[in-house]
């Protein structure tokens, strides 16, 4: 009798437990599915994309197909497929794979697509690059061509107005000088359709990756680091560079930037002690930058101040860029006395303190913003749509990067170049004397360059 009673009364408990478990697991499954199934309608229309692909035929190849499956290959068989775009039906929509309606298999430079539920394919385009699966790099300062997957950023129309303002997951605190062991951002693992691996510059390769310069007006740049006494490897009096066909390396209107009055302490970007007391380029009057007379923007401030949303997860949305040539007011303020100088790119720019809205970073198209990721110093600039770091891919191992702060300057040498996924910050680690340069090469990838201080 007692046993029967026990049995019957345990029923509701069991039911309660089971239903709770089922509810919880259903919720988990749904949220998990949401994070891995992404519809990836591309921002640009088909005709614009085709134009871009034709203009960049060394890295992009479009193949006409008709039916439920198709195959496409890179322009060069030594290249690796980095991104796959497809056009299906007769509209203007371009899909950047992965997408749940299409399946793809990639074998080195060849990609095969099958339609799962979408329209018939009309063309497949692949963007390719030179990637070797070697996980690490040895610094060989003499190696020349830079392997990048960067679709020539300056060519227009660009297929990728997708410069994301989010360099990666939220850096902890821009205003915090301490290299705090920042809480690791909770990343939604983006489905990595493209092998994320280190790049090894192969001296013989990759003419197809960078747009080959055809025009040849040489550009001579005033010495940037003229009378320093530091042991810089190449204190050359002038840097001569042949610009790529469609771009000039920002020797814009010659107004000097005004490091705005920032009350917060400026971080010592790069972390290293200042080995010299060289005056910064601003005080030497040799800075040629685009005008940054006033970066304040009450519209951006209003957006930032009025955002009251909860953080739902990381996002790396695309940017619809405005005319990117001038330095438009972004609301970010220059870090007092901080400059980055990259002689090889003829780049001399002030460093800004980036702001954010929620987890979305606000980075002006012509700004290099300082942020901390995993406690490491990261300088981020846009790489697409004529962004300030559009030529970053030209850097090679051993190239020089100089950072100026209020105390003087630090010299760095590039020690590592790699492509990483948009949400992958595992390669960024705090280490004294390292600085990372980060830029976007596509919607899903970032070019990450590590530079080490030279003692």
């Amino acid at each position: 009798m007692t046993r029967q009673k026990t049995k019957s009364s345990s029923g509701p408990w069991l039911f309660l437990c089971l239903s709770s478990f089922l509810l919880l697991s259903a919720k988990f499954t749904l949220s998990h599915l949401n994070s891995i199934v992404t519809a990836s309608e591309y921002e640009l229309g088909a005709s614009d994309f085709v134009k871009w692909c034709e203009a960049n035929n060394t890295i992009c190849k479009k193949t006409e197909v008709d039916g439920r499956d198709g195959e496409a290959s890179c322009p060069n068989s030594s290249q690796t497929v980095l991104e796959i775009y497809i056009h299906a039906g007769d509209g203007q929509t371009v899909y950047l794979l992965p997408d749940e309606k299409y399946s793809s298999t990639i074998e080195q430079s060849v990609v095969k697509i099958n339609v799962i539920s979408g329209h018939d394919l009309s063309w497949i385009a692949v963007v390719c690059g030179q990637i070797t699966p070697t996980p690490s790099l040895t610094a060989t300062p003499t190696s020349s061509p830079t392997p990048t997957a960067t679709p020539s950023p300056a060519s227009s129309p660009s297929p990728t107005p997708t410069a994301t303002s989010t360099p990666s997951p939220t850096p902890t605190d821009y205003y915090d000088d301490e290299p705090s062991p920042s809480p690791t951002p909770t990343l939604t693992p983006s489905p990595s359709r493209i092998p994320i691996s280190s790049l090894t510059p192969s001296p013989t390769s990759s003419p197809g990756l960078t747009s080959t310069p055809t025009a040849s007006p040489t550009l001579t740049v005033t010495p940037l680091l003229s009378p320093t006494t530091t042991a810089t490897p190449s204190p050359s009096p002038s840097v001569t560079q042949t610009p790529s066909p469609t771009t000039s390396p920002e020797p814009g209107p010659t107004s000097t930037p005004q490091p705005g009055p920032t009350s917060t302490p400026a971080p010592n970007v790069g972390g290293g002690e200042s080995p010299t007391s060289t005056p910064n380029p601003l005080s030497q009057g040799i800075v040629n930058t685009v005008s940054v007379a006033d970066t304040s923007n009450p519209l951006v401030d209003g957006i930032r101040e009025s955002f009251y949303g909860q953080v739902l997860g990381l996002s790396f949305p695309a940017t619809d860029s405005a005319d990117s040539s001038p330095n438009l007011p972004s609301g970010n303020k220059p870090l007092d006395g901080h400059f980055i100088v990259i002689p090889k790119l003829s780049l001399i720019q002030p460093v800004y303190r980036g702001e954010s809205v929620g987890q979305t970073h606000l980075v002006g198209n012509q700004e290099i913003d300082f942020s901390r990721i995993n406690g490491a110093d990261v300088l981020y600039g846009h790489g697409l749509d004529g962004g300030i770091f559009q030529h970053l891919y030209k850097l090679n191992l051993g190239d020089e990067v100089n950072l100026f702060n209020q105390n003087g300057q630090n010299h760095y040498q590039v020690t590592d170049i790699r492509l990483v996924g948009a949400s992958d910050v595992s390669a960024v680690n705090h280490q004294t004397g390292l600085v990372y340069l980060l830029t976007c090469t596509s919607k899903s990838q970032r070019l990450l360059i590590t530079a080490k201080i030279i003692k």
Partner: protein
Amino acid sequence: MTKIKLVVAILLITALSVFALRYFSRLSKSPSTPSVPVSSSFVLPAGWQEVDPGKNLFKLTKLTDHPVKPAIVLIKSSLDDSQTSPSLYVDRLVDGVRSTVPGYKLISSQSQDIDGFYLRIIQSSYRNSGQTVLLRQNIYLKDNTVYTLTASYPTTDIDNEIGLIFDNIYKTKISNR
């Protein structure tokens, strides 16, 4: 055995009651919150409340369950270069937003003169954390003073409320009528 069950049952009932109380108190709060007078100047529509403005002149938010909480902010700033025409100045600001804010889409931009102010009304949207955030921004310029009124909100169903609040803020805090 029976005692354990009794304890578990009591605990369960207590927990359920707490949850139920919280849930119902929240439900009853949102739709029927009485309108709140703001600074004795105007009355806010239901659900809106004034919050600590921080460095801004004025800030309001609305209680909702939507991840993007509607908010309105009034900022006052000054124009450095008085030579710039208001129209060109605002155009440059809009270009700045477009090149800075990810996923920014300009929907409309209209200008008018009101009480000696140059007024630009800008409707736009952007993406944040996977959500579309709608924006309505009114920027008022007179002499070197710039007032920027920004509303960010998730859906168009509160357009009217926002219009009403904008009008009131303009009357009481910008034109001081």
